[in-house]
């Protein structure tokens, strides 16, 4: 297993995909934070709302990590490297499990770095507007911790979806259309169903809100959302392993 872990990390280091995703994540972290600090009134950017303003881009980071997870698995099929991967490790379930673990860790680290970057912008930018940087309190740190865990879960979910569907463009496009268009519509029109849909469940790990609509009463509690999100990842992964073991690599 450790050889597989090292191989996955080498795969990440030896192409520009991870670097590109990292740059994209940095940009969506920096730009909203800078723009909000620059243009919002001083009364808004100071005080309790500062942590939320600084990390405004973090939801975009999670979508980037979702795509990163999908690319991590579908890229193996797209470039044909899956042949060598399965030749070295014919037990295909191990390959998928190791990828889930590695990408979950990478997702956590990426979100941690994004949050650190956002706060660095706050440390530098807020005093330039004459507002003091409020060090994150316990509640903010707990919120950051949940964002980090959710980022790991979503990245792993991307891997599981990639393992299940294989086709890169279809999986990325289909997942984003579902997450950004279909699921929000279901949340609006059928909030009691929407509360249980995967991306809304992931967002509920961070917050009790279900999207920007609906009430907290219709959502899941954080522990429930966490368990349901783990359930989604486990279900898709088990299905992906089951299908992968029967799938021909031609």
């Amino acid at each position, binding site marked *: 297993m450790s*050889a*597989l872990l*090292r*191989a996955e990390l*080498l*795969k990440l280091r*030896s*192409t*520009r*995909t991870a670097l590109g995703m990292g740059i994209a994540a940095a940009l969506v972290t920096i730009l909203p934070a800078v723009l909000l600090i620059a243009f919002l009134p001083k009364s808004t950017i100071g005080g309790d709302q500062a942590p939320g303003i600084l990390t405004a881009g973090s939801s975009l980071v999670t979508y980037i990590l979702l795509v990163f997870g999908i690319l991590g698995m579908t*890229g193996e099929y797209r*470039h*044909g*490297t*899956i*042949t*060598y*991967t*399965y*030749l*070295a*490790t*014919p*037990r295909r379930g191990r390959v998928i499990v190791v990828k889930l673990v590695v990408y979950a860790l990478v997702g956590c680290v990426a979100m941690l770095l994004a949050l650190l970057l956002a706060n660095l912008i706050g440390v530098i930018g807020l005093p330039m507007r004459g507002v003091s940087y409020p060090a994150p309190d316990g509640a903010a740190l707990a919120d950051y911790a949940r964002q980090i865990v959710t980022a790991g879960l979503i990245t792993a979910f991307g891997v599981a979806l990639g393992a299940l569907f294989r086709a890169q463009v279809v999986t990325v496009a289909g997942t984003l259309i579902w997450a950004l268009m279909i699921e929000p519509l279901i949340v609006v029109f059928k909030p009691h169903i929407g509360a249980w849909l995967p991306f809304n469940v992931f967002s509920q790990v961070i917050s009790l809100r279900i999207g920007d609509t609906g009430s907290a009463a219709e959502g899941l509690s954080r522990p429930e959302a966490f368990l349901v999100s783990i359930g989604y990842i486990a279900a898709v992964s088990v299905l992906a392993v089951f299908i992968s073991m*029967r799938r*021909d*690599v*031609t």
Partner: protein
Amino acid sequence: MAVIEAEHLSKRFGKKVLAVDDVSFSIEPATITGFLGPNGAGKTTTLRMLVDLVRPSGGTIRILGSRYRDLARPTTRVGALLDASGFHPGRSGANALRVVATSAGISYDRVDAALEMVELEGAARRAVKGYSTGMKQRLALAAALLGDPEVLLLDEPANGLDPEGVRWLRTFLRARAAEGRTVLISSHVLAEVEQTVDDILIISRGKLLAHGPINELTRTAQPVVRARAPQAEKLEGLLVAKGAAVNRLGDALAIRGPGSAEVGEIAHAGGLVLHELLTEQPSLEDLFLQIAGTRKES
């Protein structure tokens, strides 16, 4: 003990395509076996079934005495060249091999050795997207050699190689066999492997048509009569009418069935002039056409 054993192997894709149909064979150690057949014959599917990339619909496979997936560190026992395009285009050649080596628990020293073996050490740091087809083929061969395996499965390894590369490959394979390794090499270019292999398997439309030492099979094959005639088309008609199998290219005819004396007599009876008439021992290509032709007729 046979290194590779396939028994009643079959593979069906969907309901309509029977890619491999009840194929049985065994490969002895320290031999080079040519796995021959036209495109779409079932060679690649069979090779992929040997290494568990494709699940057989029926039959069994044993490689080094067990299933591929049950071999400990399989890439150190069996090296496979199945897909020369199976590398990430943005990864360097050396890193592509390091990824394979790392997941297989093979030391990086072997990466350098394999690159040197395929004479690709100068391009090791370049991204694979900048490689020519021949270079990718060599890189794939290096990947197969990484684990210093005792069995090599090579699917069309000469694809994309220039004549010099093909000669290099021939020498290379001979050297591996001399070391006691077993090589199974598939190809649809028969002349390419004729000088390399000890044994051959001939497959067509998923069916195994022949299996044995190349010398024995070509010895038992019918000789080919070659003739040149100004009125080759007319001669072809006369020969076919007598039941001969004829391939004609311009004024040259390759004739299977009648001997040279009979061909001469048929030409004479038809009032046709011959510019050349000779009997040749059949090449591998002739043997293949005979076997495949017989099969088609039956």
